């Protein structure tokens, strides 16, 4: 993996984010496995930590990059893969992270009023997990388009 990174044109920050996001994606699968095994306490800790960590990574690393590199060019340049991938990743990622935070607040706290809390936990959690992985794959595609020269070169 280190050798693969040496061949990309990515800055260190982008590599760190990629590794973190891949680890978080795997972590969520492990968390889901914990729930299946009935270890709900560990499941809650695992998923909550990942959702909050991801929120921090998005706020500190991804949003500033998106604002500089993508936001000034949309919607005019959405026809280009470079911008389209990043925008789709960003939009779907926002929905997924918000849904993750909603589950976290709904299942793990009493902050939300009763009528706003989730009743069908499994459907929500499985849907968000599936969406999370779609976003992760889109993020990997974005990284590849932005930083891996030899895949798209003439």
């Amino acid at each position, binding site marked *: 993996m280190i050798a693969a990174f040496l061949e990309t*044109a*990515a*800055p260190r920050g982008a590599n760190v984010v990629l590794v973190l996001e891949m680890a978080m994606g795997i972590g969520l699968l492990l968390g889901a496995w914990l729930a299946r095994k009935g270890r709900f306490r560990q499941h809650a800790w695992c998923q909550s930590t990942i959702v909050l960590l991801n929120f921090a990574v998005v706020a500190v690393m991804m949003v500033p990059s998106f604002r*500089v*590199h993508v936001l*000034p*060019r949309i919607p005019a*340049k959405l026809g*280009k893969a*470079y911008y389209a991938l990043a925008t789709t990743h960003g939009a779907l990622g926002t929905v997924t992270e918000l849904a993750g935070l909603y589950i976290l607040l709904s299942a793990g706290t009493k902050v939300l009023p009763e009528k706003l809390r989730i009743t069908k936990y499994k459907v929500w959690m499985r849907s968000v997990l599936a969406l999370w992985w779609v976003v992760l794959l889109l993020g990997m595609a974005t990284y590849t*388009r*932005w*930083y891996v*020269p030899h895949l*798209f*070169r*003439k």
Partner: protein
Amino acid sequence: MRRSVFIAGLAAALVMGMGIFGTGRKGSVTRAQQNTSTMEVKIDNFSFGPVALTVPVGTTVTWTNRDDIPHNTVSTDDPKIFKSKVLDTDEKFSFTFNKPGTYPYFCSIHPKMTGKIIVQ
């Protein structure tokens, strides 16, 4: 007859004269181009070309992004001597170098892309 020979001669002289002046103008254009103090660095295929560019003092260097993804050009020096916005395909950034020295730069989006301007 004499008149037509005269006209033909005049026409020939005009054509030759135009040729001479035309060449002269062409030569002056070339010299002017050589004297203009603008040089270009092309950004393509995740690299700057030429990687090192030597220019006289007062030269304006223009970076043109010919790549299909965005790049920028940022002076490595601290404080930064120049910094472009993010350049999309076919966008340009220019900077005039008024002091001799070596000016390394890089693309902050792809930090392994580096180049330098040598001002003499």
